[in-house]
């Protein structure tokens, strides 16, 4: 196969490309340039968008003996990932830009161009497994290394895009194994630290980035009774479930910490309350992407739900709802509680290790507690 290996400049994508070469594929490395003005992006060794990272990707390709190109996808990245990030925060929601990048950039813009140029598959350093079924369909599963599993951020790609994806690290036992393999192969990126932050927020200051791009939009911080407790300069600086940085002078009457319960961008209001008020009973999510056959009748079925990249999956009941949505009933699985779910977050349903569906949270209902 002709395989395009997306090379971020990090250790995972380098080893993934190396494994694709070992598997006998005809591999070409491509580094995606996601910003026209590279100074905007952080220049440390943690990201995937600095000039240093492009150089590391080039060097890794040299070592592997494969061609290396840089493709400029900055316009698409700005139009989709960054624009969505800003619009979602402006609307009082909490987006996951890595999910959108996988959806619109890696497995759409990059993959579409790759296929048009004659490639058969796109290989990345994601930790997830692709399981081929007897009927020819492919399933997306969690990685063998649960700590590194990235099936949550990949689920948005759906079955069609999965058909042209390749994740050679899905069976890796641990990240240490991958680092050791990189070192053994002479890839100098073996000791690069992992990336965590949002790549297009240069200094990791997401609130400052949003303030620069969205402007100051001040408003009150209130409790559930409507009493004003403080002020803020933009609801985009807050996320459901957030505790730190609220800057409320007065303690709560019960002396317990306060959390962000809801965000109302139209009135620029942030509502805070106790931790118990964060519990949700049901979650509604839209734009669902199904890997399994969706039950159009809307019957409830048992599965597990995950709402954060590094959160745990909890037992729930789920069903399809009209207009391509999903509803999840958290109360069905009494063993777990789900707290602080924000609109905009990605909801992924699992059956064991297998991804069933992905959707974007639109609304939640609170669990009723005394």
């Amino acid at each position, binding site marked *: 196969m002709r395989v395009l290996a997306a090379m971020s400049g990090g250790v995972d994508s380098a080893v993934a490309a190396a494994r694709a070469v070992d598997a006998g594929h005809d591999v*070409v490395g491509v*580094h995606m*340039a996601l910003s026209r003005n*590279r100074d905007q992006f952080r220049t440390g060794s943690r990201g995937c968008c600095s*000039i240093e990272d*492009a*150089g590391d990707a*080039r060097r890794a390709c040299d070592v592997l003996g494969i*061609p*290396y*190109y*840089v*493709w*400029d996808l*900055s*316009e*698409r990245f700005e*139009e*989709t990932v960054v624009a969505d990030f800003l619009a979602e925060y402006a609307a009082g929601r909490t987006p996951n830009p890595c999910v959108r990048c996988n959806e*619109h950039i890696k497995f*759409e*813009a990059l993959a*579409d*161009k790759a*296929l*048009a*140029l*004659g490639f058969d598959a796109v290989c990345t350093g994601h930790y997830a497994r692709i399981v081929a079924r007897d009927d020819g369909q492919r399933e997306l599963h969690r990685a063998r290394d649960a700590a590194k599993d990235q099936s949550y951020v990949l689920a948005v790609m759906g079955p069609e895009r999965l058909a042209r994806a390749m994740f050679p690290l899905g069976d890796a036992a641990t990240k240490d194994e991958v680092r050791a393999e990189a070192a053994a192969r002479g890839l100098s990126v073996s000791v690069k630290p992992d990336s965590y932050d949002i790549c297009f927020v240069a200094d990791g200051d997401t609130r400052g980035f949003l303030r620069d791009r969205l402007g100051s939009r001040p408003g009150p911080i209130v409790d559930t009774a409507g009493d004003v407790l403080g002020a803020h300069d933009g609801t985009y600086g807050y996320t459901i479930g957030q505790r730190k940085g609220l800057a409320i002078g007065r303690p709560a009457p019960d002396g317990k910490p306060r959390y962000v319960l809801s965000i109302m961008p139209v009135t620029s209001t942030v509502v805070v309350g106790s931790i118990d008020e964060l519990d949700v009973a049901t979650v509604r999510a839209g734009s669902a992407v199904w890997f399994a056959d969706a039950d159009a009748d809307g019957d409830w079925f048992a599965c597990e739900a995950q709402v954060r990249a590094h959160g745990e999956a909890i037992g729930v009941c789920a069903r399809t709802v009209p207009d391509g949505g999903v509803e999840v009933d958290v109360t069905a699985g009494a063993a777990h509680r789900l707290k602080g779910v924000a609109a905009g977050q990605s909801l992924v349903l699992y059956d064991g290790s297998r991804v069933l569906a992905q959707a974007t949270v639109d609304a939640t209902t609170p669990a009723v507690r005394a």
Partner: protein
Amino acid sequence: MTTYLDHAATTPMLPEAARVLAEQLVRTGNPSSLHTAGRAARRVVEESREQIAATLGARPSEVIFTGGGTEADNLAVKGLFWARRRQDPARMRILVSAVEHHAVIDPAFWMAAHAGAEIVLLPVDQDGVLRLDALAAELEAHGEQAALISVMWANNEVGALQPLDDVVALARRYGVPVHADAVQAVGQLPVDFAASGLDALTVSGHKVGGPGGVGALVARRGLELTPVLHGGGQERGVRSGTLAVPLIASMAVALEAAVAAQPGYAVGVGALRDQLVAAVRHVAGDAALRGPADLARRLPANAHFTFPGCEGDSLLYLLDSAGIECSTGSACQAGVPQPSHVLLAMGLDEVEARGALRFSLGRTSTLADVDALAAALPGVVDRARAAGLAGAAHSSGGAA
């Protein structure tokens, strides 16, 4: 078997230049040392200097060795600006054509940002040729404030020859020194420094079959240049740094050979280029030749096209995987092709400029190279166009 069509980026070393380089590499001696070994090295440098001067129609004392074409261009722009402004503080304006190489444009912008210069980008016509009327108007309005003019002998991307005789004549009236980057011209066109009337001229080693990392600024006797590199005072104090004897000797051999061969080479490579242009037009009918359509008004080894609906990086990848090596012709930032400032200055929009490819021939080029390109190009263009559309399918900008 690869087809190398990127001789304007760099070209194979002449065997004679490689031999001299190897010979000199194993010799010891700093040309600034006063002992026997130093004197021997100095002799090699000075003979090379004389050889280069004779080759380019200059005097030996007019040749300043540098670490390459970029350094020579920087020395010309910065050194002339500082020297002229010291003589006459009113001379703040740096006049450069809008199609100069980055080695000229970027120092000019840097001087504007850091040294109080005012930059004047002189416009070009749709062929990429300097508009003399604009230069005349600028000089008429601000001639007393002009510190220097830098206009290249021939453009490195689209090959357009520039009207240097007229530039020099205009500049003389206002006492403005003129520098020309002749990195692409030497070996392809007759270059005679004295006859040109220029005040300074840049040449490079590796573009003419010499080694990389060496070049020279030819600067008229009496021309004041403020140094950019300070140190041991080599090269009359204008360019400090231990002289790279092997590189200089090798460059001298290559320059001499290239200039001696130039008349016949230009005819032969020009004919091959004409065949390449005809072949591209034949197999890719909508490809647009950029630069002067009159092939006599461009570098004989240069051809440059834009392919509508295609991304240059797609074309480059597909040609590379078909064994054909060429260039988009424009500068990269960490490997990302930027829309060429040359094409934009010629009036192309960013979308048109994105589909650019430069094919540059050299001493080792043959008709087989042209045939290989013609064979690969139709499939490559079709596929690149499909990929270009795939990339634009979800774009909201509408600039497909």
